[in-house]
């Protein structure tokens, strides 16, 4: 029994099977003795769905302490418990997430802190601000009596609006009037890309193909770069401006951008003439998004005071989070263990949410785990049944968002109807049927 105990400690999956072998009561699986399998499972699925809705309490906690709206956030690349956030008054805070406490406050910039990124090794981080500087900071809190000072400061020619660090090398990219690639050791950019645009709002490294970059520009375009090349690669101009973008961390060639037209668009970088998926549901401009580390889902923050979770190939969101007090959500992050979502909003708070609203936090016993898996499976199995669908899809929305949604729906519906009518009443073939995906790209250069 001692050896078994040791094994049990080693791995839970093994232990559950051992427990089963040891303590299971033999029973008869003859199907005639257990009739009505489908109705019984259906009932179980229904109950599981209902319970899921009952237990859907995604809000975990909020981190308050900033004295202005939160403008940017960054995850620590090696630690799950540290979060960096920068606010509109140039203040930067380091948070201890398990304790929900601010551990360090730095007055980093004059004006907004525009961007933060953590170095891949997790020993330092970079910030850019409205004061045209890029600052490198030590992740360690300075000792007693030491002043809070950046490790290095680079004064740029123009304002920086975003920063991102390379996945492996000591280089980082900033955007402002141009997209610049910097070597950490140098005070001038190694390379700077510009393509007839005067300002960029976001630049992101591809976490998989680490030499690739993408940026959102103010001329409604998304520009792709390769760090090794002298020129940018490609540019897509859309109907409205994209605010931010994020690469899928598991699928190298997909990225999603959050657009001013309330939608998000997932592109395949090899076929930019139309997005792969259009994600609709927000009722106002989408300001930020972040992929889950599994690359299966992403979370988006919107000006409409909600955050939504989309499946990477789902046209509509699977989840919407909101609270009474949460204002325009400006930045959002998905934690590196795929369990939590962090949102920073206008009203100076950072909120911590569960990525899976009804998930039980903490350690689960093997039986709990099995029951959970079984319930999930049942829900998946009966997901197309109307009752289950209705219950699983039901969400409460604040009144104004609900109204806006309805309004938007009506507008879209009428537009669609008109299109249909035009097609119906014109010579066949003269008015082309344009798919939704085709409607949003203006030009690819």
């Amino acid at each position, binding site marked *: 029994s001692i050896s078994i105990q040791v094994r049990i400690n080693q791995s839970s999956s093994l232990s559950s*099977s051992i427990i089963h072998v040891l303590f299971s009561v033999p029973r008869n699986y003859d199907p005639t003795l257990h009739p009505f399998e489908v109705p019984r*499972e259906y009932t179980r699925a229904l109950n599981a769905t209902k319970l899921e809705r009952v237990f859907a309490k995604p809000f975990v906690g909020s981190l308050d302490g900033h004295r202005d709206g939160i403008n940017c956030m960054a995850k620590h690349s090696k630690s799950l418990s540290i979060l960096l956030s920068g606010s509109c008054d140039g203040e930067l805070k380091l948070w201890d997430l398990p304790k929900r406490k601010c551990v360090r406050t730095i007055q980093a910039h004059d004006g907004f802190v525009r961007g933060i990124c953590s170095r891949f090794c997790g020993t330092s981080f970079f910030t850019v601000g409205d004061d045209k500087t890029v600052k490198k900071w030590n992740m360690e809190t300075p000792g007693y009596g030491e002043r809070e000072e950046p490790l290095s400061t680079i004064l740029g020619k123009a304002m920086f609006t975003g920063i991102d660090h390379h996945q492996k090398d000591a280089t980082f990219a900033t955007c402002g009037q141009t997209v610049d690639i910097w070597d950490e050791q140098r005070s001038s950019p190694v390379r700077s890309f510009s393509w007839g645009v005067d300002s960029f709002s976001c630049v992101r490294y591809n976490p998989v193909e680490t030499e690739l970059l993408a940026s959102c520009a103010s001329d409604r375009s998304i520009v792709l770069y390769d760090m090794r090349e002298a020129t940018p690669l490609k540019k897509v101009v859309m109907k409205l401006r994209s605010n931010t973008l994020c690469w899928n961390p598991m699928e190298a060639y997909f990225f999603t951008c959050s657009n001013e037209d309330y939608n998000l668009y997932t592109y395949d970088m090899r076929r930019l003439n139309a997005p792969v998926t259009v994600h609709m549901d927000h009722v106002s401009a989408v300001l930020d998004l972040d992929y889950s580390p599994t690359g299966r889902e992403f979370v988006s923050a919107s000006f409409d005071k909600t955050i939504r979770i989309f499946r990477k190939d789902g046209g509509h969101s699977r989840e919407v989070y909101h609270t009474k007090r949460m204002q325009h959500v400006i930045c959002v992050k998905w934690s590196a263990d795929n369990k939590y979502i962090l949102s920073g909003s206008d009203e100076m708070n950072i909120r911590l949410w569960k990525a899976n609203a009804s998930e039980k936090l903490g350690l689960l016993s093997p039986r709990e785990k099995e029951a959970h*898996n079984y319930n999930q499976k049942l829900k998946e199995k009966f997901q197309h049944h109307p009752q289950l669908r209705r219950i699983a899809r039901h969400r409460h929305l604040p009144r104004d968002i609900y109204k806006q949604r309805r309004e938007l729906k009506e507008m879209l519906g009428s537009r669609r109807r008109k299109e249909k009518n035009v097609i119906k009443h014109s010579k066949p073939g003269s008015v082309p049927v344009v798919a939704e995906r085709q409607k949003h790209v203006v030009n690819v250069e």
Partner: protein
Amino acid sequence: PSVISATCFYSKRAAVVSAMEEEEEEELTLGDENIISASEDEGASDDERKHIKLLEAISCLGGKKRKKLTERSEASTQVSEFSVNAEGEGEKVKLSDLLGKMEKTPKNLNKTKKQLKDLEKKSDTLELPLSRQEKEKIQREVAYVKTSTEVSRWESVVTQNRNAEQLVFPLIQEPSGPKRIEQVVSGWKAQTPLEQEIFSLLHCNLQPTHDPVLTPVEEASLKAMSLEEAKIRRAELQKARALQSYYEAKAKRERKIKSKKYHKVQSKAKRKEFLKKFEDLCKTDPQAALEEFKKMELLRMEERMSLKHQNSGKWAKSKVIMGKYDLVARKAMQEQLEMNKDLTQKLVVPSEDEEQEQEEPKALPDFVNDPEPVGDPANPWMRGQLSAEALGPEVSHEVEQEEEEEPENEEEALLREFEQKRRLRQSEDKGFEPVVSEEQEDPVDEAENREAEEELSEKGEKDDEDGLAEFKNLFNRLVEPVILETGEEQGDEGLEEGLVRIHSLDDTELLANDHEASLVEPVPSDTSNMEASACPPSKNSKKVKVIDPSEVLTKQAKVIKVPHAPMMVEDEEDLDEQTTIIKEAFAGDDVVSDFLKDKRKLEEDSMPKVVDLTLPGWGEWGGVGLKPSRFKRRKFRIKPAPLPPRKDQKLPAVIISEKRNAALAAHQVSYSHLPFPFTKPEQFERTICSPVGNTWNTHNVMRKLTAPKVVTQMGAIIEPIAKDDFIKDKNPSKPQPNLQLTKDSSLAKTVCSMEMKGGKKLPR
């Protein structure tokens, strides 16, 4: 320039360089007037020069001799850095000068010459270089294509991950189990002398002490093969092994074949092939042929040494004795002798193969080595066997006939006869006794069989035993059903409807329905059809049921008749044909009666059934043979209230389904809204029907069925998918400077080519 042109003459580029030089010079000559003024200026800079000289002198004092820069001492426009004076400066170099040089150079420079001549001929102007925008556009395009192909390498990984049954994140798991202390404790150093000694040893062997537990060599070997490649490789190996085993099995089988003839044919073919190959080899590669020839010679020598064909073996001796009485044995002996002669001659016969060597002489008839004595009809043993085969007088008769036909071929015929007998015996041994017994019962079959056997015997020369056995097998299979059928036919008549096979209770119900339907059926024409269709799989029903369209669709038949009337007059046969065609087309299409049947069945199914809830043994005695009392049965028998009349009761041609239950509809997936991949409700139902819970499945099965698609670990950081782990670099990309270089060189090339095009503009 002449020196330069002489030195770098051998490349394509050289021409261009010299050409460029010429251009330069042209410019220089144009600016000749300025030179004078420049020389005047020299005086002014005299002081400066003196100063430099002084500095040089001082530096020389130090003992070290610096390499002196050559001073420009003459007023020439061109001074090279290697202090070569520009002789004949100011002259123009013409292409013809270059060509003159070329003629002197010994080696083949035809290509360069030609190029230069082409240059002379051409009169194109240089193309304008591309504008910056256009150039960038091209660069962008190229770079984009490059990166997108690079990125596309992820495609397989992405699809694999998407289709994976389960993905466990983080994708690269840390190896479980105990870790070495160096991995856990960072910054640990060997301190004691013992430790230091050990570590020095480890270092000697390149055994890593810290992070990687594996040596570089091991790591390299691990990295050398990705999982997929390993799988592919394994599959290949498996296939190869399987093929090998097939081949081995085949070889074994072939080796086991006792037929001498088979081996003879085989070896003959081999020999032929070998000869052919050898001839070819002689033509193409005499060296190899010679070697081959030597090998053959060696084999032959060995053969000769072995004394195999010297008529001294046991078999040969026996043949000598037999030869007195047996023609065949004599023949065999002769062949043996011939072989011997062949071998002892000093002629080269490129024939020996290893397999061949192992064999006994091939010229022998196959049966010679058989254990049973053959040929003596007086032998009682033989007689017994022959009679068992029931291969009576006919065969022998035929043989006799053959003998009459071909008297000169007597021996062969005899041989064949023996062979036939032997084969028959063998096939019998392989288990065809039952057929034989049936033959005895049924004279017709026997005759057939015999015919077949005769066919076989005729074919016999070519076939080996295997082929024969196969044929026999097939034949038997053909014969048996015939027997069965005839048997049935004998049984016949009374079985007609009695033979209906009832598989289940449902079938009986169906039957009853049909019977009732046929009774109730109002249309007389239908009843006949019903009856026809009501008798299911009897023997007759095997035939295609032909329905007379006139019987089923009476009205239509009338309508059709009108337009066809005149045609009928023309040709009656034609009409017959048409009706048959119609009949065939509607064969088995008994629509109306089918519909009626369906409706009736539905109605009956929807009728509420009486439920009997009687429990025997409750409140009274129970046991075998005891029935619950009538009172009790009546009490627990629940008669349901009759349903409201059906909606389609008075609509004979309509079935209105009354299955839909509004209360249940919320829990049912409607047919019109089937989820995406499904096209038929049955498919969807099937997915729903199999339960996944542990009420119906064993624990392990349930665990497998309910395994989640994505598994994450609590507190584990999920890093983005890493290129090094998933994509193997087949041709590792060169480092950046290299890339730069190649780009430059390519640019230079384009420049070159452009210059070459415009070369004509050079002045003569």
